């Protein structure tokens, strides 16, 4: 089993990744906590209420970052999946698999907060607005990816097959988004236009950016942690795992 290590590049070698990620995760975790603390304080306490929406607008501080994260992570997942499929780099496969649950969670947050923001703003929890609808479909794409990965027993085949699905999905996301948007403008009967916040004060903008960074840091930390577990599971019989167990360097 241990000969397998020879095929890997230095950079992608699982042992190196395992150690490096182990060192990086605490830093990202610390940054996450610091940024979330700052963002929440600014967003919930310091920033003034919106003159139209009152305090309900404070939801956008998590709605917008998680929505961006959900979309971006899908693209990132597809890129890693493609790298893993084409160049057969196992670390890329692991990263793609590790990203999916966090991406799905972020997309779910975007939908949940969107619904809770919609109620006071438009009077209904759910509107079939272009953005919410595409986010919903994005969530389904994430769920399909994870379900396919889980349904195939052979690990290599699971990675390859779900990589094809991720790539098909990433080509489709813009098509879906534009067709949903087009559909939405056609059915503008009971007119609802969605805009984040018409004019954004500086403090609001700064807070939003801090929260976006916080979402980034959190995603990186948790994806690395999950990838680390995945590496450990795949390499459980390799010598480097045993060595680290004996040294207590886990």
């Amino acid at each position, binding site marked *: *089993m241990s*000969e397998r290590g020879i*095929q890997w590049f230095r950079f992608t070698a699982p042992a190196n990744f395992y150690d490096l990620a182990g060192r990086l995760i605490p830093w990202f975790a610390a940054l996450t906590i610091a940024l979330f603390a700052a963002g929440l304080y600014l967003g919930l306490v310091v920033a003034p209420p919106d003159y139209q929406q009152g305090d309900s607008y404070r939801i956008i501080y998590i709605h917008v970052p998680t929505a961006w994260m959900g979309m971006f992570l899908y693209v990132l997942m597809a890129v890693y999946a493609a790298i893993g499929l084409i160049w057969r780099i196992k670390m890329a496969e692991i990263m793609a698999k590790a990203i999916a649950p966090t991406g799905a969670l972020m997309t779910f947050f975007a939908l949940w907060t969107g619904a809770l923001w919609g109620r006071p703003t438009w009077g209904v929890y759910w509107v079939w607005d272009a953005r919410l609808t595409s986010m919903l479909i994005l969530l389904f794409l994430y769920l399909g990816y994870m379900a396919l990965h889980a349904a195939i027993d*052979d*690990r290599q085949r699971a990675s390859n097959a779900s990589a094809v699905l991720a790539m098909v999905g990433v080509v489709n996301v813009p098509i879906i988004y534009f067709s949903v948007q087009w559909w939405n403008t056609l059915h503008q009967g009971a007119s609802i236009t969605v805009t984040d916040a018409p004019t954004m004060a500086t403090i609001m903008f700064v807070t939003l950016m801090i929260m976006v960074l916080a979402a980034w840091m959190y995603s990186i930390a948790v994806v690395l942690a999950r990838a680390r577990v995945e590496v450990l599971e795949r390499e459980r*019989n390799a010598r480097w795992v045993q060595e680290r167990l004996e040294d207590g360097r886990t």
Partner: protein
Amino acid sequence: MADREFRAVDLAAERGDRRLFEHLDFTLSPGQLLQVSGRNGCGKTSLLRILSGLSRPAAGQVYWGDEPVQSIDGGTGSCLGYLGHPNALKEDLTAEENILIAGGLAGGRPSHEAVLSMLASLGLAGYEDLPVRFLSQGQKRRVALARLLLQAKPLLILDEPYAALDVQVIDVLRSAIEAHLSRKGMIVITTHQVVDIDGDCHNLRLG
């Protein structure tokens, strides 16, 4: 028939976490037969699928002459015929239809007479226009073999071709194999039974 060697260099295969075999090398020249043996689950079928280009090896390379098999013009199917565990027959079509369609797909449709005489030589005279679902397991296997032999590929890769065949038919198949070898064809075969074949035979033991 064949003018090139068929080579495997440093092949390895794995299933899940398990290495089935590694560092496997062999060269097969025209007119030679390679019999792969080993207990169940040692990777015989995996090896044959890798050789025929259906699976990718975990390491190593298979060559047809000097060309890696995956870069052969028209795919591996243009130089080799493969018979796996399933017979690849459509139950609703007759034996002849099955053979003709497979030939048409492969680009060389055999004539009606050629099909009849091939089926007859495998002891299936008169069965050609029955839907395959009426045939017994052994008869289906023979139809599959007839299809393969009619495509006249230089290299034949046979996974348990004797499965479900009776003793008399084994003799018929053996002479077909010997004829293929004498025409400078090549064969890779796995079997449970030992069948002695006249010709340049080699053995490969896995596991």
